């Protein structure tokens, strides 16, 4: 267990811990509090020495963390005692002893993950089992509204049967509680350097690093001496290396890599735990590749035949670009250095341009066919982008789109997208994707009802978990049915508004609750 203090180091050591060596040296056999016989030192935590001890009253082994009696210590015990989970180390009690106070914890007969990883890469099965355990443990902690604040391999104990347990709640915070600031710089999320408090989102970032360490090969966390160095490593494309490595890994390890990368997002709100969806991933990649190839061919033909609404395509692309870029700017924490700011800006520009290019390509490729075979689908959209806000058809699409979004939200268990610009960019992107997929299917099968059925199957399979229970799958199917109805009856604008309303779940949920 490593310490949580910061500041200068003396020969690589934390000064507070060095000084603690002068007062925390208890010989084996010493009986503390008339009840605990010290057996052996286990390590040094953020606030004190941890010993293995025998509880003479109850006759079992415990881990004793000796700490100065303080409000911090009481908070640690209060927070830790709430969580009872096989993958979280139990906190039993706090007792007064001759040395001050002792937190009585579950004794895990094993070693910490940092030591285990120090001996070399873990076998795939074992790494995956540990990853599952840590995710389950952290999930249990977050379910209680607690942020751990110092998740790292040294705070994960592996017992004799290979089961992992998260330990050390010395820096944990509950709810909006700021907690005691600390942590290990290399595992701290970028925003923690400014906000200086434990959050569930920061825990997810640390989880991302921990998961990446379970993969074979070097990871940024092992090389970075500080959070800023780590940030620089991420910004300089170290994670891209990790991403490339994913192609040489097994499917399970690749998911682990993808999960780690998703959690290491710089923007806290976009740090979303990945669900294992290998089937959906394959379908999505196959669809995307086919759509891109078909899109390029169709766009080329349309451009040569001069039947492209260039202005409409440019407006749609510009809209998506602006929303995506604004979303990034609004959600991002202040970059710590000028270099980080420049790097972030270029990444944001590239991402926004890529999204806009996709929209432009799809629009150029398919809009002429929609205009020819299904002109009603684009009327509302076209009038809106031309600024006719008081048009009756635009008003109808907006109102019915919102209503459809509220209905879709009734079925949904999907997480919120609190950033309004993200929701706007994604709404336009998804609506275009959904509409053009429908058009492609209509062109392919010629019968509208078969195309609609195929559309429903493909979108439901793509947006729900492959191992989801039938009820959940049916709920996603119902959402997609509403969207399909909106697209078919009202067109692109109403579809985009419905998706936007659906994604803005806090506002929508509040509306539904009301």
């Amino acid at each position: 267990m490593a310490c949580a203090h910061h500041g200068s180091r003396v020969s690589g050591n934390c000064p507070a811990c060095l000084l603690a060596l002068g007062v925390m040296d208890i010989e084996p056999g010493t009986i503390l509090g008339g009840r605990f016989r010290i057996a052996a030192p286990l390590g040094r935590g953020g606030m004190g020495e941890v010993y293995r001890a025998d509880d003479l009253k109850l006759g079992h082994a415990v881990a004793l963390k000796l700490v100065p009696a303080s409000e911090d210590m009481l908070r640690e015990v209060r927070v830790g005692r709430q969580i009872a989970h096989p993958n979280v180390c139990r906190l039993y009690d706090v007792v007064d002893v001759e040395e001050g106070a002792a937190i009585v914890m579950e004794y895990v007969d094993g070693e910490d993950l940092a030591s285990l990883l120090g001996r070399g890469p873990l076998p795939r099965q074992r790494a995956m089992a540990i990853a599952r355990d840590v995710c389950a443990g952290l999930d249990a902690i977050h379910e209680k509204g607690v942020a751990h604040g110092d998740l790292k391999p040294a705070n994960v104990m592996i017992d004799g049967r290979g089961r992992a347990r998260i330990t050390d709640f010395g820096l944990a915070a509950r709810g909006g509680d700021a907690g005691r600031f600390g942590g290990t710089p290399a595992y701290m999320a970028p925003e923690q350097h400014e906000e200086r408090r434990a959050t569930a989102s920061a825990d997810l970032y640390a989880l991302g690093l921990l998961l990446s360490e379970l993969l074979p090969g070097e990871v940024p966390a092992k090389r970075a001496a500080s959070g800023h160095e780590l940030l620089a490593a991420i910004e300089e494309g170290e994670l891209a290396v990790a991403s490339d490595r994913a192609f040489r890994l097994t499917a399970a390890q690749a998911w682990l890599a993808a999960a780690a990368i998703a959690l290491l997002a710089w923007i806290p709100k976009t740090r979303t735990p990945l669900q294992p969806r290998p089937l959906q991933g394959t379908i999505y990649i196959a669809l995307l590749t086919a759509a891109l190839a078909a899109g390029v061919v169709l766009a080329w033909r349309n451009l040569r035949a001069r039947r492209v609404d260039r202005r409409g395509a440019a407006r749609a692309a510009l809209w998506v670009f602006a929303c995506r870029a604004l979303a990034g700017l609004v959600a991002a924490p202040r970059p710590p250095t000028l270099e980080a700011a420049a790097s972030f800006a270029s990444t944001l520009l590239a991402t926004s341009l890529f999204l806009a290019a996709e929209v432009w390509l799809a629009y150029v490729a398919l809009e002429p066919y929609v205009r020819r075979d299904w002109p009603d689908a684009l009327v509302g959209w076209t009038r809106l982008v031309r600024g006719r806000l008081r048009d009756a058809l635009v008003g109808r699409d907006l109102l019915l789109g919102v209503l459809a979004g509220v209905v879709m939200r009734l079925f949904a268990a999907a997480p919120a997208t609190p950033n309004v610009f993200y929701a706007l960019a994604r709404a336009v992107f998804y609506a275009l994707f959904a509409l053009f997929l429908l058009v492609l299917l209509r062109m392919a099968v010629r019968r509208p009802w078969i195309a609609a059925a195929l559309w429903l199957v493909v979108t439901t399979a793509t947006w729900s978990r492959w191992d989801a229970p039938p009820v959940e799958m049916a709920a996603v199917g119902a959402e997609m049915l509403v969207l399909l109805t909106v697209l078919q009856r009202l067109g692109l604008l109403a579809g985009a508004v419905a998706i936007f309303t659906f994604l803005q779940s806090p506002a929508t949920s509040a509306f539904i609750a009301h």
Partner: protein
Amino acid sequence: MPAAARFQTTNWSLVFAADGSPDALNDLCTRYWHPTYAYVLRCGFDRADAEDLTQAFFGRLLEHRDFAQADPRRGKFRSFLLGALKHFLSNERDRAKAQKRGGGLEHVPVDDGVAEDALTPDQVFDKQWALAVIDAAMRALREAGEPEHLMPFLTGEQSYAALAAERDVSEGALRVAVHRLRRRFREQLRRVVAETVDDGADVDGEIRFLIDAVSA
């Protein structure tokens, strides 16, 4: 020579006594030069004036071994030195320029970071004092020939596996060596602290105070 004999503890009040060794007094002042300088700097003096004032303060301390309002016969050296320093600065503050007097003291290199700390002068003094105590204990370990490569393991934040592989020794042997090193460091740390308190029983309390000071 046994360690206990090599590192006999001399209480600071004995060093300050009229018949105390000038070398021992010089060593003691040199050890705590940096906290003193950091305090003066934090009081708002520029670097050049802070250095001059610190040198002048120790020069006077070595010359007279006493200050009017501080009694070296009892209490902690830390409290005595800070009290004496405040008294000295209150007298010196009105002077246009501090006189340069050094008394043959060794001039310790300065950590520029002390001026930027968002701490009060007293907190800066206590924090730098804690670091000076650690530094003295570490220096004693090095002078006793303790292996430098084990120093980063003192607080148990490093992985043994890499060093064991590099040095071709077992992790078990490494753990035993580090355990011994910690024990020796503990002895040195307690000796250094014991020199600055008037009662041996205060050592634990003083160390706990320094832990709080360095964590501020």
